[in-house]
């Protein structure tokens, strides 16, 4: 890894750890996971509750966190831009520097209770998947927040407003629209369509992966050939995880381009 990039990231890590905000975020997940396991019953129950929380809140927290960073660090970023370093290096250094602590806070916060309650050993595949999805969602949504921060650089109200609307849309409304479409065009074969549409929303992608882990038994009860092929073979997992990778790559790439061309 580029040492300069690491130098920038390290500086953010130190600064964020001192801020305690991220530590608090990790503690919230620690307490949540621990109490889910302590009072809520077995591993699958806890993992499902955790993934529900994760699917709903990580996107919101990630985006707010990303955009807030841009807004709070404007002058500092501008100062760094006047130093003799490449903008690309600065972008990656900052992005990695601020997204990985949030990601690690979630992963460690959830992992530790899963470990000391012994779930990690029993439901290791499911645990790894929930933690991995949370990690990827964190990166995706921090990069979206970053992007929105750069796009609405001079208008914070608009930036935050846009973020909230995007979250509401992706987390809740989108699925409502899908359901509406399904009922409107119910007489046509829709399997391919709903799969394609779900692939366009990163929260849905993560949800589908959770579903593939925990609801395979129910999915196998469905008789449609396309769904069966998608859910029944590794195809669903492969398609969903590669789409998630795209979802991570595209906003970070656009963010990089915007950052590179932007007038500060």
């Amino acid at each position, binding site marked *: 890894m580029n040492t*300069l990039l690491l*130098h*920038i990231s390290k*500086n953010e890590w*130190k*600064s*964020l750890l*001192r*801020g305690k905000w991220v530590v608090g975020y990790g503690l919230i997940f620690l307490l949540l996971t621990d109490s889910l396991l302590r009072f809520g019953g077995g591993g699958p129950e806890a993992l499902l509750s955790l993934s529900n929380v994760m699917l709903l809140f990580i996107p919101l927290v990630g985006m707010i966190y990303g955009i807030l960073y841009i807004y709070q*660090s*404007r*002058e*500092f970023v*501008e*100062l*760094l*831009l*006047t*130093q*003799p*370093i*490449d*903008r690309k290096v600065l972008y990656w250094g900052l992005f990695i520097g601020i997204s990985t602590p949030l990601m690690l806070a979630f992963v460690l916060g959830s992992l530790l209770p899963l470990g000391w309650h012994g779930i990690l050993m029993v439901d290791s595949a499911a645990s790894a998947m929930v933690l991995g999805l949370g990690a990827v969602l964190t990166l995706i949504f921090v990069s979206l927040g970053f992007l929105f921060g750069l796009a609405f650089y001079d208008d914070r109200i608009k930036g935050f407003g846009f973020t909230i609307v995007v979250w509401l849309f992706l987390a809740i409304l989108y699925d409502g629209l899908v359901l509406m479409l399904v009922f409107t065009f119910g007489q046509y074969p829709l399997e391919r369509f709903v799969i394609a549409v779900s692939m366009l929303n990163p929260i849905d992608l993560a949800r589908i992966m959770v579903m593939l882990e925990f609801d395979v038994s129910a999915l196998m009860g469905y008789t449609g050939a396309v769904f069966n092929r998608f859910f029944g073979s590794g195809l669903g997992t492969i398609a969903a995880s590669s789409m998630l990778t795209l979802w991570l790559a595209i906003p970070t790439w656009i963010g990089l381009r915007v950052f*590179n*061309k932007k*007038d*500060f």
Partner: protein
Amino acid sequence: MIEINDLKKSFGNLEVLKGMNLAIPKGQATGIVGPNGAGKTTLIKTILGLVKPDSGTIRVNDITLNGNWQYRRDIGYMPQVARYPENMKVFELLEFIKGLRKQEALFEDELIEQFNLGPELEKFLRTLSGGNRQKVGATLAMMFNPGLLFFDEPTAGLDPKASQKFKQRVKNEKENGKTVIITSHIMSELEQLVDYVIFILDGNIRYYGSMKNLLTESNEERLEGAIASMMDVA
């Protein structure tokens, strides 16, 4: 040295730089003046690479700017508003920038002593007064001994004593052959620090010449009056 040719920049519909031509030779101390919104900050930001021009060329030390960054090795910049990450200590910021530039911080100790920053080094930046933050900014700009120094409203937050020290330091830099560029609203300060004046109005350079000439031509004793009369003409 800095050479600028037909530099144009618009933000949306607003034309901020309307075809600027400028040559600032090495070792010259230049003040940039003009009303708010005239294009001073945009001009400096463009030279620093913060803002990308729509057209025209900028050459710094014979390097043509095209999104490259190496030329900034020879540039020190002190921003107008000094805000730094809250959870960083002063010495950590200095170390961080040193790590970024990978250049020898020749004047680090000297500047810290001059600005009396020693007792502040272990403090968090969020606890620093505005004046001390400005001093940190000045230190960052000058400690690597760059040939080109940009100061954006440098004395705005400084107390008279610190201001005094800062001006002394800039004079020394000038005497050591540095190219110094300062924007300021305080004309008396410019009179003390610079030999040349660039007056910008509405995205154009209205005047570029030596301070002496300006005062002679405009029959004014002070820079303030000279600038005011130019604005009246416009």
